[in-house]
């Protein structure tokens, strides 16, 4: 028994440095290191993901850890050493898990549904409020109309679709990127470019966002 504890202890402490981890996870891979990393990923993923998973958390987390491990092993050469290797590996695992959960949640939504279901209404600038005063309603309608005109004038179709899915449909970047057949980075850049265009147009038209927000 004592030997078993000793063995466990020496096994657990043998990957304390990034160098040791990198050596162990590079070819030829040290299976003990992989197992230790897998256990750590599972342990960390449970509290990180539990609020997003309503059932079978253990199984889900084990699957995510397994997929993440493969990515870690495939990308070990790209680890730059800016943090502990475990933090880097956990980052990969967390993204793996959350991405899967986000996509699962929106499995049934197709880009066609999102694109064509009610565009005409979105861009007809209807206002839905809790029966505000008529003058307030008129003011809000004006602002919405203005905003929509600017969006239609300034943004490409692709940018309009992205804005609509992210801000009006309130979908996650992960889901929209998948639906638009792109990746999160490219989608963010597309929307950033759209926001810059809107900001410039605001400036040209003398629209002060603070002032606008105060009147809404």
């Amino acid at each position, binding site marked *: 028994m004592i030997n078993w504890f000793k063995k466990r202890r020496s096994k657990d402490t043998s990957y304390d440095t990034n160098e040791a981890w990198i050596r162990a996870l590079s070819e030829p891979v040290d299976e003990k290191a992989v197992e230790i990393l897998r256990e*750590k990923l599972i*342990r*960390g*993923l*449970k*509290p*990180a*993901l539990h609020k997003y998973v309503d059932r079978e958390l253990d199984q889900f987390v084990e699957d995510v850890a397994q997929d993440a491990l493969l990515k870690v092993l495939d990308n070990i050469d790209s680890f730059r050493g*800016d*943090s*502990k290797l*475990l*933090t*880097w590996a*956990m*980052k990969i*695992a*967390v*993204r793996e*898990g*959350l991405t899967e959960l*986000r996509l699962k949640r929106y499995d049934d939504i197709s880009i066609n549904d999102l694109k064509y*279901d*009610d565009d005409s*209404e*979105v861009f007809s*600038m*209807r*206002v*839905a*409020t809790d029966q505000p005063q008529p003058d307030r309603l008129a003011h*809000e309608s004006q*602002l*919405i109309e203005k*905003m*929509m005109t600017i969006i239609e004038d300034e943004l490409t179709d692709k940018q309009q679709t992205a*804005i609509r899915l992210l*801000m*009006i449909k309130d979908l*996650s*970047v*992960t889901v929209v990127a998948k639906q638009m057949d792109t*990746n*999160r*980075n*490219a*989608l*963010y*850049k597309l929307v*950033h470019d759209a*926001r*810059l265009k*809107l*900001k410039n147009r*605001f400036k040209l038209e003398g629209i002060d*966002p*603070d002032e*606008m*927000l105060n009147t*809404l």
Partner: protein
Amino acid sequence: MKLTTDILKKMVRSVQMTTQQEIGCGECFEQLEQFAGMKLKGKAPEEAMPLVQDHLKKCNDCREEYEALLDAMEELGNPA
């Protein structure tokens, strides 16, 4: 679907917060472990890595991943 005042506010706020220099999700992801590591050590990554901080403010998915990463590392005894 109807366009609500809340959605208009959200749009205006996002325009208001836009800056010329922003990083995307890819660059944020590349630096996330460093950012989280500093946070877990009690340092101030917000000051040292303002572009990552700015991205986390603007991107829900990246922020969610950052928070989950902190939870995970805290469970492991904060070995950042």
